[in-house]
Structures are given as C-alpha cells and as structure tokens.
C-alpha cells in the first residue's frame, strides 16, 4: 500500500510543483528525492513497516515477491531519471508534468504487482498505460510523435476493450472478479466454456500490452516515433511490469482451465504459449536484422526479448520465477543504458555510430556492455536471465523449445554486434555524439555497467532477496 499511495501523492506533488515552483531546474531534484523516498517506503513495507492499514476487501494482496518487484522497477526508474532527466527537460515545456505522469505510471505498476482481483488488474493496466500515451505524444511539433501517440492510443483502447470483454466473460462464468475465488469456484463447479473464452481474450489483451507477436504491430512505430527518452521508459520498466502482471494472472488459472484437467473445454496452454513464443522470437529477431535505424532495431529487439520473457509464462516454476526477476533487472539496466547513449547521437542509423569509440570511449564501452547483456553473452546479467528462462523450460520437459530459443538468441547476436562493430572498427571524421556527456550521465552509465557485470557474475546478489 505504501508504494501505491505514495507514488500517487508524489505525482500530485510534482504536478503542484509545476504551478508553484518557477525554477525549472528544481523539478528533477524533486523527482529524484521523491523516487528515493518511494524506494525507501517500498523497502520498508517489504520489511514489514506498512504506513497505512487499509481494509482492501481482499482486492489487493501484498506479498514479498510483488514488493520486491516494485523495488526493482522503482530503482530502475530512479536510475532512469538520474541518467535522462536533462533529456526529459529538453522534450518540451512541461517537465514537471512528465515527471508526474511517470509517477502515476509507477502507481499503476504497484497495483499490477499486488492485484488480487480482475477489477484492480484492469485499473492497474490503465493507470500504467494512459500516462504513456501522453508521453509518446509529448513532442508535439513532431509529426511522427503525434502519429505514434494516436496509434498507441487507438490500439491500446482496442486491446483494453478485449481485456474488459475477457473479464466480463470470466465474471459471467464464475460470478466473481477475484483471482482466489475463481480458483475455488472452478474446482467446485464444472469449467464453463465462457471462462475459457475469457481467459483467451485476456491472453490476447496482455499479448498486445507486452507486444508479443502477432499483436506487436504497434511496437516499432510507437517506439520509433516517441521521444527517445520516453521510449527508454516504455521499453524497459513498463514492459517488465506488464510481464509480471501477465504471469501473475495466468499462473492462478493455467491449472484449472488447462486441457489436462478439463478435456471437455480446456485449453492446451503449452501449445498456445509455444506458438506465441516462437512467433514473437521469429518476428522480433528476423525483422531486427533488416533494420537501418538503431532505434527501430531496438524496438524489434524488444519484441524479441518479450519472446524470451514469455518463457516465464510457459513454465511456471521456481526457475522461471527467478528468471523473470533477473530478466526484469537485466533488461531494464541494459535498455536504460543503451537509450541513454542513443539520445546523445546525431544520427540514429548504424552508420551514425561509426567511430564512437574513438571520440567517446566511455559511451562506447557502456553501449557495448549493454548490447552484450541484451545478446546474452556470459559475464553479463543477460546471460543468466536467458539461462534461467531456458532452464525452466527444459525442467518442464520441453527441450526443443529451449533449442529454438538458443537459435534465435544466436540470430540476435548479429544485429547487436553490428552496432559494436560500427563503434570500434569503423571511423568517422567528426564526433558522432551530438551532446557533450555530462558527469551525471557518466556516473549513471557506470552504475548500469556495474549492475550488469555484478549481477552477471553473481546473480544471487539479486535472487537472495526473494528468500530472506
């Protein structure tokens, strides 16, 4: 509850700051201070100090797993704001409003990690996404940004409609919005075809939110059109939070609606998830190979990474759970790091990165580490994240799917290394970076690189928190 209430309050604080604080450079300081307080409050709740005691009528259930995921997301946001606050200031005049919207989004994330009720899940998804539609269109004079915002908004509302239809079907079949009571209800009664239909509609809506193929079509345009600094937020923190809610929702009902327990109307979830995973990996990786712009390549690579995170949905066991946390942390770190470099470039094409290592060795090194982590090279956290996901699948007895995953990870190395090759082995006369790198960015990137390597050598630095 700490995180939900405080993030909403901090959003209001920043909103008010835009009216009463005239010094525009103060906003980012306020935002950073609020984020530090938010992380602190969330850790305090993890340790058992809840500031608010509210009877939630069993609609929200706070457990250590969800709160720990909050901590990962909030810390990543702290790092994100620390690195890119000067870029956020440069987008438009409404800096404080953008920070406020980011806080509201975090409120949605805090609901998504603790919902115990489909109604709260719906609210959480909407609170998380609506600020994003606005952040996407925040570059008002750029037509591409306008187009991206409209596309994202229309497609997003459409998928919300499907989500609501699914919830309505489940409510009609079971008479309850709760996750828990649905569990009890379906064990007692016979499984209804309506509930299965509802679950498949929910699957479609969530596949859209996390941009899994074949519901990914909005992703490249939106990620490409949005201001790069907000693409970074969307592609990292929002995406992993979507996955947490996805897995949390489905792990409670894969059993009861599966083909194995209910041969009459059940769904073969493993087959369905496998199709979804392979389609996502295929579309993401193969299309990323043919991109000319690094930003667009990263959009497709985020689809490909979504394919890997879907493994957590396929195999719900201890391994996949650990893998999801590690993936969340690693993917957030790497994406924030690489976008922090990208916003500094003059030219977003691969050629634009030529000779970056000569002119800006720090930026080039940080980019390399982030790309290696995204590709899943050992000694980076990306390796262990992929390893845990694949191990979870093998443990469920689907080794062939793990092999497919490894093959596509191999493909991904090609387009990640194109950037590295451009930076180190090609030369350019002038400095490809447009903006001088400030010391804040350097410190932030150092934290990113350190996080990637420490977690890559010792993943249990993160995972141990799940069990204490």
């Amino acid at each position: 509850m700490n995180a939900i209430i405080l993030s909403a309050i901090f959003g209001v604080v920043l909103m008010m700051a835009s009216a009463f604080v005239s010094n525009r450079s103060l906003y980012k300081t306020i935002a950073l201070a609020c984020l530090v307080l938010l992380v602190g409050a969330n850790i305090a709740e993890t340790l058992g100090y809840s500031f608010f005691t509210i009877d939630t009528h069993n609609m929200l259930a706070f457990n250590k797993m969800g709160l720990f995921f909050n901590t990962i997301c909030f810390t990543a946001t702290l790092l994100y704001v620390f690195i890119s606050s000067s870029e956020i200031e440069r987008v438009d005049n409404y800096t404080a409003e953008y920070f406020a919207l980011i806080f509201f989004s975090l409120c949605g994330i805090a609901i998504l990690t603790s919902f115990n009720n489909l109604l709260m899940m719906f609210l959480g998804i909407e609170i998380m996404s609506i600020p994003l539609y606005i952040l996407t269109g925040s570059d008002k004079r750029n037509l591409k940004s306008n187009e991206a915002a409209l596309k994202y908004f229309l497609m997003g509302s459409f998928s919300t409609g499907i989500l609501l239809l699914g919830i309505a079907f489940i409510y009609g079949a079971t008479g309850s919005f709760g996750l828990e009571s649905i569990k009890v209800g379906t064990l007692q009664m016979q499984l209804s075809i309506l509930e299965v239909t509802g679950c498949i509609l929910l699957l479609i809506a969530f596949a859209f939110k996390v941009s899994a193929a074949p519901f990914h079509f909005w992703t490249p345009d939106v990620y490409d059109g949005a201001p790069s600094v907000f693409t970074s937020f969307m592609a990292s923190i929002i995406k992993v939070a979507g996955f947490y809610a996805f897995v949390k929702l489905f792990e409670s009902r894969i059993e009861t609606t599966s083909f194995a327990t209910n041969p009459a109307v059940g769904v073969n979830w493993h087959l369905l998830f496998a199709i979804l995973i392979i389609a996502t990996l295929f579309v993401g990786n193969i299309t990323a190979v043919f991109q000319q712009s690094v930003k667009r390549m990263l959009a497709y690579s985020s689809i490909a990474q979504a394919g890997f995170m879907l493994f957590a949905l396929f195999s719900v066991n201890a391994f996949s759970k650990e893998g999801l946390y590690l993936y969340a942390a690693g993917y957030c770190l790497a994406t924030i790091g690489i976008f922090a470099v990208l916003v500094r470039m003059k030219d977003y094409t691969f050629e634009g990165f030529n000779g970056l290592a000569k002119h800006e060795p720090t930026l080039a090194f940080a980019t390399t580490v982030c790309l290696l982590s995204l590709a899943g090279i050992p000694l980076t956290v990306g390796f262990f994240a992929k390893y845990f996901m694949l191990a979870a699948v093998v443990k469920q007895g689907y080794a062939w799917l793990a092999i497919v995953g490894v093959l596509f990870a191999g493909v991904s190395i090609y387009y990640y290394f194109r950037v590295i090759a451009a930076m180190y082995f090609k030369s350019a006369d002038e400095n490809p970076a447009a903006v001088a790198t400030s010391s804040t960015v350097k410190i932030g990137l150092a934290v990113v690189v350190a996080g990637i390597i420490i977690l890559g050598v010792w993943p249990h630095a993160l995972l141990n928190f799940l069990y204490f």
Partner: protein
Amino acid sequence: MGTTQLLFWLLSALSIFSAMMVLISKNPVHSVLWLVLVFFTISGHYILLNAQFLFIVNLIVYAGAIMVLFLFVIMLMNLNKDAEPQKSIWMKLAGAISGGSLLLIFVSVVRSASEMQSKQALLKTGNIGLIDQLGKTLFSEYVIPFEISSVLFLSAMVGAVAIGKKH
C-alpha cells in the same frame, strides 16, 4: 389496467415507432433526433423497473453525450442528397442476410424462453437499482477501486492539459 401497465404499453409503442422512424427518415439529423427519443423511452422503462440510476445514466450518457457527438459528426460531414453513397445490390443483399440472421436469433430466443412466460417482470418493486444501494456498495466493498480510479482520471487530466495547452 393500472397506470404502470398503461405507461408500459405507451412507452413500448412509442419506442418501437421512433425506432422505425430512425430508419425511415431520409434526413440524418432527423434520424438522430428520433434515436434520442428511443433512448428516452427506454429510460422510461428503467423507471418502471425501479432502476433510477440506470435511468439517469442512460439519459446523460446516451441521449446526452453520445447523441450530441453524433449530431456534431453529421453536421461536420455536411451530408446532402448528392453526397449520398450509391449502395449496390450486393450491399443490400448482405444487409438483408445479416439483419435476417439477427432477427432469427431474436425470434428463437423469445420462443425458447418458456420459463420466462410464467414470470412477471417486477414493476415498481425491488431496490437493487436505487442510488443508495449503489452508493453503499461503492463505498463499502468497492471503495478501493473507486478511490484508486481517481489516480487514473488525474493522470488523464494532467495529460490532456500537457497535450492540449498552447505555449
């Protein structure tokens, strides 16, 4: 025949008549106005069923907001005789088939609803549609989603201002 029954037949006849007029009238603006009348008569039925909240929401949302939006769109499109699209015979055929299928489903539903025939609709009784019932549920059991949705609206408002304001 009591007042309630009299009102029921009156409203039903009026709603069917105005629904027909929506389709028959040539002028799109007249169609919309007849549609507003359809919503009013259906809202009247809600009152007969003692559902005041649905009555007022139906009026505000459908007859008020959505129909005004319709009117604006029609006026902006500036429809007249010349701009009317030419409908081919295939379009008419497809419309007849899909409309006929829907009619078939409705007829079969009414015919198979034998258990409903013995029951009478509860007129003027029952308190489930009253506003105080709704308020009690909203502020006791569903108070958390109710309060949290304020964050949703606040973020939408902040966004609308940030997007819509001039420099």
